[in-house]
């Protein structure tokens, strides 16, 4: 079963950290990614998202596309990055994510990814 881990923080949260905290976060994050890539549970490298102001929101209404510039979320915390885990259960996925320094500084949400396999009923 695959799970996506969604990292949330406030815009500018990383920049607001002290240099020592920033260095600690970076090296912990590297160690974290390395550890679970080696167990074969973390797929690929993960992605950090650029600031939400650089994004666009697309809506199609009545067949017409309407594209608006970000930022689009009013919430204080925004999606900052994500990576994919492939493991036996959501409990194991959550256990892995407790090692992500982002979970300590901010919050990481774990969600199952829908798949196209299924059993007949």
């Amino acid at each position: 079963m695959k799970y996506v881990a969604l990292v949330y923080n406030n815009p500018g949260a990383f920049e607001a950290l002290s240099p020592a905290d920033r260095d600690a976060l970076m090296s912990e994050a590297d160690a974290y990614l390395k550890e679970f890539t080696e167990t074969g549970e973390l797929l690929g490298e993960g992605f950090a998202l650029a600031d939400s102001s650089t994004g666009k929101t697309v809506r199609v209404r009545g067949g017409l596309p309407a594209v608006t510039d970000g930022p689009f979320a009013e919430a204080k915390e925004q999606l900052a990055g994500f990576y994919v885990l492939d493991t036996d259960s959501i409990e194991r996925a959550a256990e892995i994510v407790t090692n992500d320094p982002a979970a300590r500084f901010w919050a990481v949400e774990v969600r199952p990814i829908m798949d196209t396999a299924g059993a007949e009923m």
Partner: protein
Amino acid sequence: VTSRAGPEVEDLLRGLAPQVLGSLVRRYGNFDLAEDAVQEALLAAALRWPEQGVPENPRGWLTKVASRRLIDELRSDRARQRREEALAARVPAAEFVAPAPGDEQPPDEDDTLTLLFLSSHPSLSPASQLALTLRAVGGLTTAEIARAFLVPEATVAQRISRAKQTIKSSGVPFSLPPEPERAERLRVVLQVLYLIFNEGYTASSGPDLQRSELTAEAIRLTRELRRRLPGDGEVAGLLALMLLTDARRAARTRADGSLVPLAEQDRALWNRSYIEEGVALVTDSLSRTQLGPYQLQAAIAAVHDEAARADDTDWPQILALYELLERVSPSPMVLLNHAVALAMVRGPRAGLELLGALDGDDRLAGHYRLDAVRAHLLEMAGDRDGARAGYRSAARRTTSLPERRYLEGRAGQLTDSR
């Protein structure tokens, strides 16, 4: 690298892979490097044989090429220099040359068995067990395994290399597990093979068609296992279960990938020869070996497969088999199916009552399957509102897109025809 070899060369290579690996490991003792060397030899053969023809002694050819790669690898690794010298001193010079076709030793039948046990060693994670079984015993490439499991190739490579490191560091010998452990270890081998089968079987059509190769591979490996352990009822039971399940493949999904429930499947599309073989296997094993969960599940599948129409299904027999299965191997999933069989024999209220026993069960709390079965029984009982709510709740909780579509469709039908 993907092999462009035709199916015949591919089958030949996959059958030879564990034999060549076994003979290398017994000769040089280095499972980790030997496994890599065999993979390279398989790739070389897959590129060369379709063009230049299959050599007279394919096993000898592969052994020769793999041995050379292994020795090159040992030589190039300076850190292993001293060990290599010790090895060279131990191995007679003649060993470096592949035997002439006539001198070839007969394949050691136990190598495949030993490799199956080794690849599903309990110290490995389930994901590593599947990957290593497919590569070391099945002869699949890392790229093929990655495509089948929809993960990056680097991830499969990590799982395999980690598995080999674990085997190396725990000093697992290249031999069959000792007799007292063997039954328990065989149970894990069967579980790994069944997981490989299910990974392929539950994949729907379309972009996932590639994954159906896993079903064929699981059946092939289970056949190989059965050839070596013909007296084991559970090995026969698992093979029968796979055949009797896979027999329905063509009928279980529509062209658009949506799921067709068993009762609505076009039975003319079922694979008769798989059904005959599966029925014969399970009938034989039930009559002469100790009863086990795979045999019982195969027997249930056989009763379904033998009914010409869904209405002809012998539900009392299925109910009796679920009662037995619950005694031999109880689980919430078995109880769910038991409730359906009970509803078919004694009516939906009896089934719903049995489901009530599952409400406090943590293993199923919030599981979509409990909601889906309850909705089905409520629909049978005429409670349309309850059924609709159950289907909707199940649709929200499943992580499978085809299942969600099916469950939403059932809920929708109950709304439309009001």
